[in-house]
């Protein structure tokens, strides 16, 4: 058996280290370490509750709006208010813009460059893939960056800037939209759609959204050459490298439900365990800290009563990350979980045929780009200029509230307790806290740790490429994971 430590593991957001035990050209055990601790939960103690809207987005520069949305939702619950429809729509549009941009950033900047690594140089497809997707130098980067930047004008218009806006508030949006701005939103989104349909999908978005099975996906792919559209290129590479059989994890999925509007989520939430759906209750969450560098390692707590006090000397710890569990079980969160639980037939078929995988995670993300842009088109039409965008409420001296939302990378929760008008406790469970959690007290590895078991290792590989694909298929955000 050999041991390898892979780190710094880049092209993920933040700092990541993965320790591997390898036997017979396979990973047998994996240990995932989040190496950075900043202490946001400590920083927030005693603050004016509204200040959480300034601090929590700065947990993460790539999920900044998601953090803000969760914080605003928690505060709204504590204040007992809900935003007017316009406020909800603007908030959803800003969040959707971030989520779509994040999916695109992941696909082009984080994930695809691994296929241009020299380990693949003998493959027949290597030359054109390298030209297109090579990190920094690939032609895809040069296509994607300007298109992404222009798409982010939606955030500029509605949120003032991205990242780190304050537009999303418990009472709605600080930005009201007039008719001309509504027209501008239409224009920006249609320009982005052009880019997606020309460069990313090389097909109308609807043609991808309407796919119902893996077979239909294969047919869609084979309609054109592998280099006709970057999604097709990925699907080609995935079939060449058998990525549908790589990276299976726990078979248990969680989604809080995304983009609430009039009490209804656009992507519905729930729990899916080994093919069986059940409803989600936040009461079922406990955070195990037996393998984290944190105090009180033997006590699991619900986040309302959570404690986050670092202890670098904690002997059983190997990461700063807690291990959240739902009814004691490891959950996978993210676009795959969301699209499965929402019941999209393509994703359901892929997972029921081959289980969750690198391929399924990436396809779910791509699908979500298309579905979300179509939703955004509808939301823009639903904006009613002249009607209210924001209501104001005062913060009670004693209250609590939870903000459970879906970020690009999955389920994000904020739990806030207010006492004497100040924050008494504030705890955050981020998507990658779920996915990249360490072992719990029962010794059960987290989702990524499970997904890495059995990953193939090629002769002489120091940083196994299969491990690169599997880790990045989760689109981890390490600055969120430990905050």
């Amino acid at each position: 058996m050999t041991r390898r430590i892979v780190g710094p593991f880049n092209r993920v957001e933040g700092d990541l280290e993965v320790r591997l035990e390898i036997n017979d050209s396979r990973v047998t055990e994996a240990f995932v370490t989040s190496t950075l601790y900043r202490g946001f939960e400590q920083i927030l103690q005693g603050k004016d509750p509204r200040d959480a809207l300034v601090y929590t987005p700065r947990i993460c520069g790539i999920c900044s709006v998601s953090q803000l949305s969760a914080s605003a939702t928690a505060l709204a619950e504590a204040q007992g208010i809900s935003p007017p429809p316009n406020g909800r729509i603007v908030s959803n549009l800003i969040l959707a813009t971030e989520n779509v941009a994040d999916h695109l950033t992941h696909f082009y900047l984080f994930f695809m460059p691994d296929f241009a690594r020299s380990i693949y140089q003998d493959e027949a497809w290597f030359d054109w893939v390298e030209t297109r997707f090579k990190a920094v130098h690939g032609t895809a980067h040069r296509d994607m960056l300007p298109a992404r930047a222009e798409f982010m004008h939606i955030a500029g218009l509605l949120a003032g800037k991205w990242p780190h806006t304050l537009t999303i508030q418990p009472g709605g949006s600080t930005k009201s939209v007039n008719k001309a701005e509504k027209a501008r939103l239409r224009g920006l989104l249609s320009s982005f759609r052009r880019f997606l349909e020309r460069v990313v999908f090389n097909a109308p978005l609807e043609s991808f959204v309407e796919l119902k099975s893996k077979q239909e996906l294969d047919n869609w792919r084979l309609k054109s050459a592998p280099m006709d559209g970057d999604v097709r290129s990925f699907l080609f590479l995935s079939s060449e490298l058998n990525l549908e059989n790589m990276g299976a994890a726990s078979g248990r999925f969680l989604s809080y439900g995304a983009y609430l509007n009039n009490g209804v989520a656009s992507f519905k939430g729930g729990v899916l365990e080994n093919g069986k759906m059940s409803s989600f209750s936040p009461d079922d969450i406990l955070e195990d800290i037996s393998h984290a560098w944190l105090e009180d390692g033997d006590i699991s707590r619900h986040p309302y009563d959570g404690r986050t006090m670092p202890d670098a000397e904690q002997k059983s710890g190997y990461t700063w990350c807690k291990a959240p569990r739902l009814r004691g079980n490891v959950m996978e969160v993210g676009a795959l979980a969301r699209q499965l639980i929402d019941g999209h037939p393509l994703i359901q078929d892929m997972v029921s045929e081959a289980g969750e995988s690198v391929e399924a995670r990436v396809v779910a993300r791509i699908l979500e780009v298309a579905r979300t842009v179509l939703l955004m088109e509808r939301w823009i039409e639903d904006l009613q200029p002249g009607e209210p965008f924001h209501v104001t409420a005062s913060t009670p001296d004693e209250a609590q509230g939870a903000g459970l939302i879906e970020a690009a990378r999955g389920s994000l929760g904020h739990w806030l307790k207010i006492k004497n008008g100040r924050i008494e406790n504030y705890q955050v469970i981020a998507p990658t806290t779920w996915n990249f959690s360490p072992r719990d007290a029962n010794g059960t590895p987290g989702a990524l740790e499970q997904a890495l078991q059995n990953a193939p290792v090629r002769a002489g590989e120091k940083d196994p490429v299969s491990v690169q694909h599997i880790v990045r298929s989760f689109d981890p955000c390490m600055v969120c994971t430990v905050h």
Partner: protein
Amino acid sequence: MTANGFAKTSINMLWLQSGGCGGCTLSAICAEAPDLLTAFDGANINLLWHPTLSEETGQSFNDILDAVRARKIELGILCLEGSVITGPNGTGRFHMMSGGEVAMMDVIAELAALSDHVVAMGSCAAFGGVTAGGGNPSGATGLAFDVKDPGGLLGEKFRAKSGLPVINISGCPVHPAWVTETLLQIASGDFTEHDLDVWNRPKAISDKLVHHGCSRNEYYEFKASAEQLCELGCMMEHLGCKGTQACGDCNTRSWNGTGSCITGGYPCIACTEPGFEEPGHAFVETPKIAGIPVGLPTDMPKAWFVALASLSKAATPKRLRKNATADHIVISPNNNKRRGKR
């Protein structure tokens, strides 16, 4: 120098992240006209390694570091994004460099000594930033400032090999053009110590106030104030806006093509200033003494400000008074050239 003013041989730039959120990188890749990578190409900046963008990971990254340490690769620009994490108790254990047994703060100090230029990307790297908020649980500090005190990781006297101190591009996040324009000046060799202010921030940015070009300037002039978020009036009197005190060209150069905090409907929180993370009051509330805002424009006599404010308040047109507390324009400016009554 080449005809276009940039270095003939490429300048190697290494970008590291520590106690931050990655948001300065994410902001930087929103650069437009040109995009970030094209800007680097044009300036002959060779991106030696960047955590978000580069291929190298694990061993291949460590090979780059070793080559820099062995002087086989000359380091032209070292960028740090995020604060330097020194805790607990000065050990730096709260951020060990992934894949090794070394505290990130030691890697940063080692590389800073080898680089021609050292650039702090964002308020965290410059001063400590939000990570240094509250009781600063992680021992966060800036490269050459600890919040407002000179020092930080490298100390007040630190000079990079070029002779320049750490260049602090503050902001939370940085504007992409602050990044590209500063780096391009460095690459062309015409960035000097005279281009830095007292906080070692590029004067090109800090010579301006967020207030300049504020789209709510007319409300400011007449002290027609918004009372709640989402209202159109000036946010200085009630909602904590620090645009008149904070440096930055946020309202003369738009963010994400079109915006600023003010156009987004929320106040400037002075994110370019050291210590912004602990304002001593709620961010969206203006602290007042006897009804007068505490944080007035820094270089204006208070009595004059109060006198002018009461004068302009008395002269406020109805249009501004009404619009200031509405979420959309309720009274349009008069168009007195129009003949005939509508």
